[in-house]
């Protein structure tokens, strides 16, 4: 075990900005992508539902 305390862990030997900056931004990006994927799927589903209901629907119609 490398760390004696939480402070030490968070401090990362003085490199907190760099280490947490890397891991943090990566986490945010991945979370963001997952969120985008979900909203993409929702949009695609509504679009498909509208299409099934009303026949041909343009993408723009479902979003506006």
């Amino acid at each position, binding site marked *: 075990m*490398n760390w004696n305390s939480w402070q030490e*862990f968070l401090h*990362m030997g003085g490199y907190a900005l760099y*280490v947490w900056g890397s891991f943090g931004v990566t986490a945010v*990006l*991945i979370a963001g992508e997952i969120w985008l*994927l979900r909203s993409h799927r929702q949009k695609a*589903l509504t679009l*498909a539902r509208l*299409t099934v209901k009303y026949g041909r629907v343009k993408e723009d119609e479902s979003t506006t």
Partner: protein
Amino acid sequence: MTSRFNLYKYSSPATFYALAGKMIPWFYGAAALLGAVGLYISFFLAPTDFQQSEAYRIIFIHVPASWMSMFIYVVMAGWAAFGLAFNTRLSFMMASALAPTGAMLTFVSLWTGALWGKPTWGAWWVWDARLTSELILFFLYLGFMALQAAIDDPRRADRAGALIALVGVVNVPIIYFSVRWWNTLHQGASVSMTKAPSMATIMLEGMMVMALAVWMYAIAASLSRVRSIILERERNTQWVAQLLETEV
């Protein structure tokens, strides 16, 4: 588009949509599991580096992201080539689905590299071959996505994108060989970790586990994206209508 090729049947979007739906949770699960193990290794098992202190821990995210960023581009170009050769819609959709994830990982590589560079090299960025080629890779992804976004007709978007992806992949090794004509700060700085063999092993293991995690994540994300793309493109078909009745 007659089925002169047997594979065509298996690459039907309808079949694939269902298959992908079943596989996605598994890949997300694997990614989460491997990620947890990898992070544990990164922060708790891997010891403090003799020279770089804790900063080196960035390696556990930097290297997997870098690897995957290049790998995904090649896979994307592969799908594009397949699509152009056999005119399978699904291949084009796979290529489009991979691009955003690839671009995201390329950005992660650039970002973590920059954050690593500041403490080790004293600069956020240097114009060294490795770094530059990664930046160009980022532009190649963006070019692919921008081209597809600029074209309204999906058919043309698919094929134009595929063509530029293929041309771009030719560029990747060329850029890569340019390493020889450049002074490369990048490799020189990463020597310290091969000091003690035991340390190298645990670090290598950590890197591998994290790389696997990123790989699984990339598969899950692109499968999930391709499902949405399939839905958008195929929403006029019978199978989507049936699917919506039964599924929701």
